[in-house]
């Protein structure tokens, strides 16, 4: 009955999730069909900024199949402002954010009216009938100009476009450290806006039970638990009457870490009409309506000695909030604030972020959320410093990084990096990459003056993830904690249900959590099922984002399983008439030391506890257990990524020739899943470096408004990646895991851009703005030769 002889943790288990996904037996939100289901469609502002003078939905009501239509004013009653859970400063400017605009629209795509019809076709048609009068207002697009005294305002009632100023100064005084520096470099980097592009567009279905006032919300969300709380607050539906289910969710990358207007609108409409409703975004609609990522201007200054010892770093950010503050919009740059010093030792660090409102789609978390931006800035300027000091870029890093024997290490930004081995990861990566050979080839080709240049980029990163210690989040003014819950139900037939508060959308939690539980409980992998993503079935949770699921949620599963074993041990001791101390537990079997024939399995104990005929005196008749994990520290994955590019100086095209990475994500539960996460992360990092950008025109219209214009790379546009690992366990959780969801994205972007600049440096190029399109590379070459 008990099966596990081999350790599950560390095994490349094939995923339990796959069976329904490869056969099409999925439950995407848009698949849900309910009797009487009505479809919502949303009319959106065609302009970036305008006063709404009149909205007349009545012509839409005349259209066939239309059941209802509402303007912002019609729905205002009972539909509050959308929440921002991370007001990063006390005096932050927090504008009102109605899910449906009432008086003013502030970005192209801002919802203006909603129609409800019997099918999606009728709903789409009816939108055309709605009449809206707008008075155009000036768009606000330039982050610097918008801070001027006389700049037009996104939120006139607030009197400023400055959302907040968040400073951090740690270590010694930066100005005095700078005084003693031999070299001070200052650079400006631009983090273009990105569109996350989860493959599944967002969708929401709400089914009401009018008689009891209960509502079930199905949403393509990463955060069913947070969504439930927030929807209760926004709509006034009592929290205990709301059930939120995240069915199969097709990727998120932060874009579904959100409380969206459409979710609140769908709930409100279902409540008004007493009928089930569905809304599904189209891709091009999502490009306007689903939050964007990045969008920053980074002014970075680094001070060092002539020998290449870093002294200090100063960072000034302008961060584009977009038109409104969504769930964690203001906090995204702050997640990055602590990571600008990267893996390096230095004496002083000075950081300021100014959040700025613009008339564009709101920004919020996108894979890495603040940390890719930070890593990009430090890794780019380290390369520039290496050139300035005539040092190999790897050597400069080596001279400054924290050595493995120095952990735990208090970073200059105030974090405690618990573990790591940057030397080991870098040495392994250099060897796999053939660094010295590539440098030799590069030199030859530069001497020959090849039109196709070879460039080599390095990126040595760490990140803070595993969000997070609740106390720290509180200090940062985040509205919630960072714990995660798990419970384990030992079923009478010997099967096991693991209930997790994480909400997977592609990460394979069902598989990994099964491995963790199977190991601790000594049951077989196949005997474990994992329940998630339903606030009724998994009532307690903080959901999935920030590479937190394994290090917090997986660790909670581990600890809950430990508690189950402890309870089972009491029952086993009772049944075997032995003292608990005399019991051994291995492979799911309790046995008495010295008399191995006296044994019972944990699954037999589950049955015995179910019947409860013969339990220890006073024992509560259950061996089920739950655990809420609140880690004491973040975790700090790290690694070294190396990229070799060929840049055609005639056309400006960059081709990735080889890509090698060695990541240290701590102990690995499932190497297959870890490798997959690294691949996908690198792909998105490369995409930022080479392909993707949300481009707006001077009027504030999204130019890259469809998937034909926003260039998501295909299989042809990405190389094979060589991945490897070192394994330095994290100390902040019992699994020793560090998290892997964002690592690739954080590391890859600067590796690629460093390689491009490295290729072109002999031709005078020192910077190419992202995405490094062929046109931009060509322009940079032209300017360098002018």
């Amino acid at each position, binding site marked *: 009955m008990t099966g596990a002889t081999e350790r599950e943790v560390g095994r490349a288990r094939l995923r339990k999730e796959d069976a329904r996904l490869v056969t099409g037996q999925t439950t995407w939100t848009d698949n849900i069909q309910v009797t009487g289901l009505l479809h919502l469609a949303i009319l959106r502002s065609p302009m970036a900024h305008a006063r709404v003078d009149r909205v007349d939905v009545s012509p839409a009501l005349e259209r066939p199949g239309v059941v209802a239509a509402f303007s912002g004013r019609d729905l205002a009653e009972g539909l509050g402002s959308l929440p921002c859970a991370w007001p990063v400063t006390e005096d932050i400017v927090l504008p009102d954010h109605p899910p449906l605009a009432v008086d003013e629209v502030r970005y192209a795509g801002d919802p203006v009216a909603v129609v409800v019809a019997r099918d999606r076709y009728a709903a789409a048609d009816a939108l055309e009938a709605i009449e809206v009068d707008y008075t155009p207002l000036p768009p606000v697009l330039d982050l610097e100009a918008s801070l001027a005294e006389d700049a037009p305002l996104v939120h006139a009632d607030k009197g400023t476009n400055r959302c907040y100023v968040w400073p951090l100064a740690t270590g010694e005084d930066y100005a005095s450290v700078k005084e003693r520096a031999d070299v001070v470099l200052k650079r400006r980097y631009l983090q273009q806006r990105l569109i996350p592009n989860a493959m599944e567009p967002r969708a929401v279905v709400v089914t009401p039970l009018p008689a009891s006032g209960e509502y079930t919300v199905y949403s393509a969300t990463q955060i069913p638990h947070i969504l439930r709380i927030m929807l209760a607050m926004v709509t006034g539906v009592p929290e205990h009457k709301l059930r939120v289910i995240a069915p199969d969710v097709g990727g998120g990358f932060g874009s579904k870490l959100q409380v969206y207007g459409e979710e609140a609108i769908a709930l409100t409409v279902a409540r008004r009409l007493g009928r089930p409703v569905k809304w599904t975004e189209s891709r091009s609609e999502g490009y306007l309506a689903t939050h964007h990522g990045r969008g920053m201007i980074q002014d970075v200054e680094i001070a060092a000695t002539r020998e290449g010892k870093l002294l200090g770093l100063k960072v000034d950010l302008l961060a584009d909030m977009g038109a409104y503050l969504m769930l964690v919009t203001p906090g995204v740059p702050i997640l990055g604030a602590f990571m600008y010093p990267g893996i390096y030792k230095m004496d002083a660090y000075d950081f300021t972020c100014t959040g700025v409102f613009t008339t564009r789609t709101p920004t919020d978390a996108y894979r890495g959320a603040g940390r890719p931006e930070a890593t990009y800035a430090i890794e780019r300027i380290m390369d520039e410093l290496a050139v300035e000091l005539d040092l190999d870029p790897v050597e400069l890093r080596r001279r400054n990084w924290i050595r493995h024997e120095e952990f735990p290490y208090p970073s200059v930004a105030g974090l405690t990096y618990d573990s790591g081995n940057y030397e080991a990861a870098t040495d392994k990566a250099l060897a796999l990459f053939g660094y010295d050979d590539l440098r030799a080839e590069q030199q030859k080709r530069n001497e020959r003056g090849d039109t196709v240049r070879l460039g080599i980029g390095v990126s040595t990163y760490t990140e803070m993830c595993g969000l997070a210690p609740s106390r720290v989040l509180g200090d940062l003014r985040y509205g919630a904690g960072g714990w995660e819950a798990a419970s384990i139900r030992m079923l009478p037939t010997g099967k096991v249900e693991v209930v997790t508060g994480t909400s997977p959308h592609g990460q394979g939690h069902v598989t990994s959590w099964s491995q963790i539980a199977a190991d601790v409980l000594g049951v077989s992998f196949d005997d474990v099922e994992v329940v998630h993503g339903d606030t009724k079935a998994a009532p307690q949770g903080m959901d999935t984002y920030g590479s937190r699921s394994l290090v917090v949620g997986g660790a909670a599963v581990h600890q809950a399983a430990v508690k189950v074993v402890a309870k089972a041990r009491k029952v086993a001791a009772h049944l075997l008439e032995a003292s608990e101390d005399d019991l051994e537990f291995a492979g799911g079997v309790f046995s008495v030391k010295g008399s191995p024939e006296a044994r019972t399995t944990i699954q037999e104990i589950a049955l015995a506890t179910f019947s409860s005929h013969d339990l220890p005196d006073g024992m509560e008749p259950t061996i089920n257990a739950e655990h809420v994990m609140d880690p004491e520290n973040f975790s700090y994955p790290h690694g070294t990524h190396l990229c070799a590019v060929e840049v055609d100086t005639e056309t400006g095209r960059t081709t990735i020739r080889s890509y090698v990475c060695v990541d240290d994500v701590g102990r690995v539960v499932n190497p297959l899943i870890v490798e997959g996460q690294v691949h996908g992360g690198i792909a998105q990092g490369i995409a930022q470096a080479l392909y993707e*950008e949300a*481009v707006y025109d001077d009027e504030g219209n999204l130019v890259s408004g469809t998937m*034909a214009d926003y260039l998501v790379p*295909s299989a042809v546009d990405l190389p094979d990646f060589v991945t490897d690992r070192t394994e330095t366990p994290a100390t902040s959780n019992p699994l020793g895991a560090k998290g892997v969801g964002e690592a690739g994205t954080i590391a890859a972007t600067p590796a690629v851009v460093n390689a491009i600049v490295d290729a072109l440096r002999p031709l005078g190029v020192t910077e190419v703005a992202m995405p490094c*399109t062929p046109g931009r590379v060509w322009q940079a070459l032209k300017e360098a030769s002018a």
Partner: protein
Amino acid sequence: MIPPAFEYARPTSVDEAVRTLAEAGDEAKVLAGGQSLLPLLRLRLAFPELVVDVGRIPGLSGVREDGDTLVIGALTTHHDVIRDPLVGRYTGLLAAATRTVADPAVRHRGTLGGSLAHADPAGDLPAVALALDAELVAVGPQGRRTIAAREFFVDYLQTALRPDELLVEVRVPKRYGWGFHYEKFNRVAQAWAVVGVAALVRRDNGHIAEARIGLTNMGATPLRAAASEAALAGAPAAADAVARAAASAAEGTRPSSDPSGTPEYRAHLARVLTRRAVLAAAGGE
């Protein structure tokens, strides 16, 4: 998104199709493979009252020979063009360029006639038709007429086809012993060409006797690089001579500006890609 409502006709003959188009006036759209039209409908960028589905009219697909001319039915899919032995033998440039169109699933549905009638200057095939000196045969209420490719592409997404005309076939002169190459420059595999160059070269004794060069996405219509063609006539099939001729490839072009490139960059690309395409077509490197 959802296409707007439209009436639908599925004629079974060219005559019936033409009659249906004539009755509808300007309000009809022809549906062949639908790979250009359906995205436009879904984005609600087109609102036809009537969609005339010509996809089942017999006799409009396939490739046949007519003396020195290859006749390709307008409904021949990209997939079939790529694999057709006659196309491969007599007009390999068309097959080579068609291979770069969109992706396999789109190539299964998309048709040669549809691509040309849609007349997107960023599409690959209009410039190829121009370089090939193709003729396009249309049928209307007054019967058949033949339109030279250079007269066919009138403006951005506009052709010489009248609303009541149906493109039925594409006639391409057979070419013997011409080298060819289509140099497409795009940013990701599925993206439209930033610039594309279709080159046909007839060599004679180490020289380029004749060259025909079509430019994709260098203006509101596909264009010929006439100055480069003239400079190549009689030039040695060598890198420096070709480069000199390619330097005038952007003359007379009016490329657009978008996030993938400024007009200046496109002009530069046209020169570089023309050099590369001509050298490849000439059998050089």
